[in-house]
């Protein structure tokens, strides 16, 4: 078990930047693959509202990561997965 590092700067950047991109990707997944698909009436508003809670949860909970490096790696990985899924869904569904 490695020791806990504060790394407040790298964790903040990881949380606010990767948290935002992750939130966009997850909201996008919901928009593309969720009920009603991309063009359901007024769904885009709900999709936009999804972004803020996901982003802010990541940005506030990011400090639990053991180190700034771990935060960047995990969130970077989550981003890759989410954007990969988004790309796949769009190829498959549209």
């Amino acid at each position: 078990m490695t020791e806990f590092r504060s790394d407040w700067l790298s964790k903040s950047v990881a949380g606010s930047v990767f948290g935002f991109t992750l939130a966009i990707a997850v909201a996008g997944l919901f928009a593309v693959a969720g009920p009603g698909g991309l063009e359901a009436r007024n769904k885009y508003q709900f999709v936009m509202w999804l972004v803020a809670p996901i982003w802010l949860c990541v940005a506030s909970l990011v400090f639990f990561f053991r180190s700034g490096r771990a935060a960047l790696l995990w969130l970077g990985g989550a981003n890759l997965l989410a954007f990969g899924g988004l790309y796949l869904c769009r190829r498959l569904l549209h």
Partner: protein
Amino acid sequence: MRGEILRLYKSVHTWTGLVTGMLLFICFYAGALTIFSEPLAHWASPPTGGSISVEDADRLIETTLAARPEAAKDFTLRLATASEPARLSWRKSRNDDVVWSATLGADGELRVDRSNVSGVGAFVDTIHRTAGLPLDRETGTTAMGVVSAVYAVALISGLILVLPSLAKDLLALRLTTNLKRMWLDAHNLVGVASFPFHLVIALTAVVFGLHEPIYDALDHVVYDGRLPTIMRSTGPFAGVKRDEQKAPMKTVAELVAVVVSASPNFSPTSLHYRDADTRGALVRVIGEDPRFLSRGGGFAVVRGATAEVVNVDYLPEKQSGWTAAVSPFFALHFGSYGGEPVRWAYFSLGLAGAFLFYSGNLLWIESRRRTARRHGEKVVQTTAARLMAAASIGVCLGCVCALSFAIVSTKWLYGHVEDVDAWRRGIYHAVFFGALAFALVRGAARAGVELACVAALGALALPVTSAVAWAAPGLGPWAAADPESAGVDIVGLIAALCFAALARATARRAERGPTDSVWSAREASRSARSPLSSNGCAVAVGADAGDDIHG
């Protein structure tokens, strides 16, 4: 490891809170006032008199459009209320900030002037959205969207901090002589008790401030640039083509009736016309239905020429699907549900929020306090702590004073200057920055007392203005005897008493409290005295400092 995580979260909470606290104080204080912006605007608007029957609304539209044809493209008709006649307002073009308004006088004569009526409400709302930053409304709102995101992080990190000892500490308000402990308990109690409120406010404020960048990002990444098209095709006006051919409009009463028959508890307050007097005319019938969580009211879209209902997606009772999923967030931010009790609850929660941020700053100062016991009797507080204390006093009390004077000035300036709004903004900024500079120069201890006195005077100025209007009608302000205006005066009087009590308590602390604190006014004068008299002080300090937690 758990201790280390909590320590990191403590600094996250401290710094995010410190950076946003003062701006949020302004937003929350002004936000609490916006809950009652209608009575405030009513208090500050000149009596209009004139006719208030529904039939006159049609005549108002007709005569205004005859005199000012440019209004036909886009205007709003505010329906008459018990105390106000119907009013028509428009702007000459989309980019023009000046709002014109027209009413019918008691004699049936059309009166057109620059609108200052919704002025006070809109002014307080702008301060609420932009924290009174001297930026334009859009930029200020976006900036506060970013601040709100930081505030959300401060909020969640604060919850993480209190969670481990929640059961033990929550209901313990230790009113002991240990001041820091007491402030901490009060801060935690208010914070945890109103946590759901703050979470909703933070989340919605982020969306209100940053929805455009978020939509842009989604448009690029998810919608391939088709988002604007999707928005238009499902928007409330979708499916109706513009048609410039002339056509008579249905009467106001008919347009209102068709919406009310679709949703009987909906009470329309205003009608927004687009392309009036053409076949493609659309009217948004806007109103309220406090039984539902909706976006601060709601609206239905009706064809002006046929009174056929086009869209009910935003009518509180009829909203469905995705619109219904989003509307509660608006309602939970605005407190626009449940009527009066909820409004008063939001007013109190807003003020409690302002207290939360103020007490957070106090805690920061208190935990950096240099005590006489540790640092010797001639202790001087750190520059950071003194600046922080002065800035907190200057910003918080400055905003309180500035809002009172700006609101009161409306009543004195009306009729004397042309652009009341510009004057009001000028007065707000002059008082606010004046108070901030004063506090920084004078120090927190003295400025705290003096600015609290000014805040009391500012609040007292509301009932005094009304009293002057009664006693000396020639001076300018007009008298208003209705219960709504009287309510504003009473709240002003109560606020004045509260600020006076605050001034007294602060003065007592500055005079008699421990000298090893930023809140002591004796700190500076003491160093100028002879060593002999400072011995006398040291005895008094020793007696007080025994309660200090740093000891």
